């Protein structure tokens, strides 16, 4: 059969490949738009800005669709981070949303029905921190199949490193504490992963849970030795700040002491968002490389994986080290953001909260970790709003008598219902929605 007779080869002839510039231009536009809008349009009102934004977004989506590679993909193209136009549009939309969100939240825009806009900024920042930790948890538990309950132990480790390096040594230098915590997390994580070489499933769960208690002992000893039982203060004089040689950067105006202290939700957002996005992208990249495929092979059947030539021990320890490093970093961020850490910041309930997050969001899906933590933190806000503002909820006294208990019950019921009927969680629902959307679009214009 010659090349011209082969239908696959003919189809491959009709390929279209955009240039690199074309592939990334929509992203660049999406990233630059909010800055230009924010810097140039002070005299426009909110609705004008929204209209311009939507118009530009439509253009970006059109270009992303037009500059889509068509025809058969090579393996290399198939393994790309954002493969399809839909992937790329969603990524651009997310990036755009992340860049615009703080300006909307910081504006004095009041939505109808007293929707709790103002309190949302703190929630958004917490979601960022938790999404990072939950994604790392999911990388270990969901993708690599190494059941570990030592998650909160690494948050505590992050706080300890933040306390030693960030508070005791350098008086509030979070930038030094972050890599230090990542390093400490990787080393201690690899050590805590050692039982995984011998134990599996249930017994691994119990062994890592033992590690939790050992780390709590270390935490208590450290706290008692240097700070007493009140907890470490990461706020006030210990607040992180931008070094003076970086003050030329745009958007940074030092106060009268010549310092730029990171305080308040808006500034924190611009610290937390890039770190979270970068670390989540890092984990996504780990998953789609050789190392990540090895994790999945070990999860599915470690004996078979070793027959394929995968170094099982190395793979398991690597999963523990990577996950723990990111969790320790999120522990440092949480410490400096929340401001003080005492013993009850690291109880068993916190482990369960992370478990709830990854179940509700979607097991073994990084996207699910983000959805889950957003849901976990927004649920109480929505519930509070519904209790105060919605007329048919406001009248039920039972709900306003026990707000936090019913909140807890809702979370419990959700975990049970999702595990029973929709094991993919919110990420699965999102995927179903996108499939439904593309199916109905395809039906309309075949």
């Amino acid at each position: 059969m010659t090349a011209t007779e082969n239908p696959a080869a003919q189809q491959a002839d009709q390929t279209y490949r955009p240039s690199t510039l074309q592939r990334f231009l929509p992203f660049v536009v999406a990233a630059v738009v909010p800055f230009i809008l924010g810097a140039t349009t002070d005299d426009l009102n909110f609705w004008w800005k929204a209209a311009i934004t939507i118009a530009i977004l439509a253009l970006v989506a059109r270009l992303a669709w037009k500059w889509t590679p068509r025809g058969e993909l090579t393996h290399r193209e198939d393994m790309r981070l954002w493969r399809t136009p839909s992937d790329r549009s969603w990524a651009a939309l997310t990036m755009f949303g992340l860049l615009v969100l703080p300006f909307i939240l910081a504006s004095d825009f009041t939505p109808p029905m007293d929707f709790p806009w103002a309190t949302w900024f703190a929630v958004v920042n917490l979601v960022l921190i938790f999404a990072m930790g939950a994604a790392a948890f999911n990388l270990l538990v969901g993708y690599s199949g190494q059941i570990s309950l030592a998650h909160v132990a690494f948050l505590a480790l992050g706080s300890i490193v933040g306390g030693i390096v960030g508070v005791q040594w350098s008086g509030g230098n979070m930038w030094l504490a972050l890599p230090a915590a990542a390093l400490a997390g990787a080393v201690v994580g690899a050590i805590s992963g050692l039982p995984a070489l011998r134990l599996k499933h249930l017994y691994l769960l119990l062994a890592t849970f033992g590690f939790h208690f050992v780390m709590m002992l270390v935490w208590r000893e450290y706290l008692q030795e240097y700070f007493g039982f009140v907890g470490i203060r990461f706020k006030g004089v210990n607040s992180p700040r931008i070094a003076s040689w970086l003050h030329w950067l745009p958007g940074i105006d030092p106060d009268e002491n010549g310092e730029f202290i990171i305080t308040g939700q808006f500034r924190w957002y611009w610290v937390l968002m890039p770190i979270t996005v970068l670390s989540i992208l890092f984990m996504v990249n780990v998953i789609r490389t050789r190392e990540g495929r090895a994790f999945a092979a070990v999860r599915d059947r470690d004996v078979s994986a070793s027959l394929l030539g995968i170094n099982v021990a190395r793979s398991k320890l690597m999963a523990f080290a990577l996950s723990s490093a990111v969790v320790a970093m999120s522990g440092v961020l949480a410490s400096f953001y929340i401001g003080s850490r005492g013993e009850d910041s690291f109880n068993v309930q916190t482990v369960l909260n992370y478990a709830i997050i990854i179940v509700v969001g979607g097991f073994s899906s990084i996207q699910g970790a983000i959805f889950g933590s957003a849901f976990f933190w927004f649920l109480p806000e929505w519930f509070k709003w519904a209790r105060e503002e919605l007329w048919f909820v406001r009248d039920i006294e039972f709900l306003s008598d026990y707000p936090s208990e019913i909140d807890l019950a809702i979370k419990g019921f959700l975990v049970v219902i999702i595990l029973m009927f929709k094991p993919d969680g919110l990420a699965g629902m999102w995927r179903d929605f996108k499939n439904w959307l593309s199916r109905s679009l395809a039906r309309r214009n075949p």
Partner: protein
Amino acid sequence: MLLAFGNFTADPSVNLQLLIGGLALGAIYAVVALGFVLVYKSTDVLNLAHGEFLMLGAYFALTFLISENLNFFLGVFVLLLVMLVFGLVVHYGIMRRMVGQGFFAIVLITLGIATIIRALLLIFYGPTERARLDLLPQGSFEVGGATVRHVDLVIFGVVALCVLLFFLFFKYTRLGLHMRAVADDIEAAAAMGIDPDKVYAMTWAAAMVMAGVGGLLFGHVTGAIDRSIEAIGLRAFPAAVVGGLTSLGGSIVGGLVVGVIEQFANGHLGTKWREPVAFSVMFVVLLVRPTGLWGRKDLERV
């Protein structure tokens, strides 16, 4: 080296007191571990909600025996009956749909159940703590300078009785035989005409009755009945694992061993060492014998 840590004393009466306290604690652990073992042995489910089930038992005991002021035996009967029905609800409502799911999904669903129970108890009983139960004999006597409470002896007796009953049940009754068959190989058992669904339901009911007994007993020795007594479920893990998660007798031995070790760590090193030491013992046992001292070994084929 270890002695340099704490206030080690060679005084025999202190050590005897610690030993007795450890055995008493160990008996409680054994009751809890028995609940774990029952469920794990037949259904392969690690029930992380067992601490909450126990808390439920303790609160129901409060309701039936203190608030309603029923006759002791009638009250205990009602308590165990309610727990049994609750176990059937848990099986037919939730766990039945989870058969065949992944290991961690099932662990997480028990966590979901635990969260629901905690929230409902908070709603219906409130966060205020109640005085502990005082229906079992309250006195104490002295042996060699150490105090022995009557309650501890009663707990000991009840635990021994429970283990004996379960042992006889598994060995000599038809349902016990069915349970063992299902635990061994569910497909082969089903092919022999055993209904695994019914067996699982019975298992959950039995475990819940055990949790009722445990709640009743633990309600007598805990400081106060409040929402923190669920922690006994986590603290009894080392006991269940040391004994082996599939061995009824192992849960007794594991409970006593871990209880005594914990009590000695508590007395000589300080309270904060209690959980780390218990979990370290568990860890060492896991490394040496991954299925506990008397656990069933599973072969794995590729």
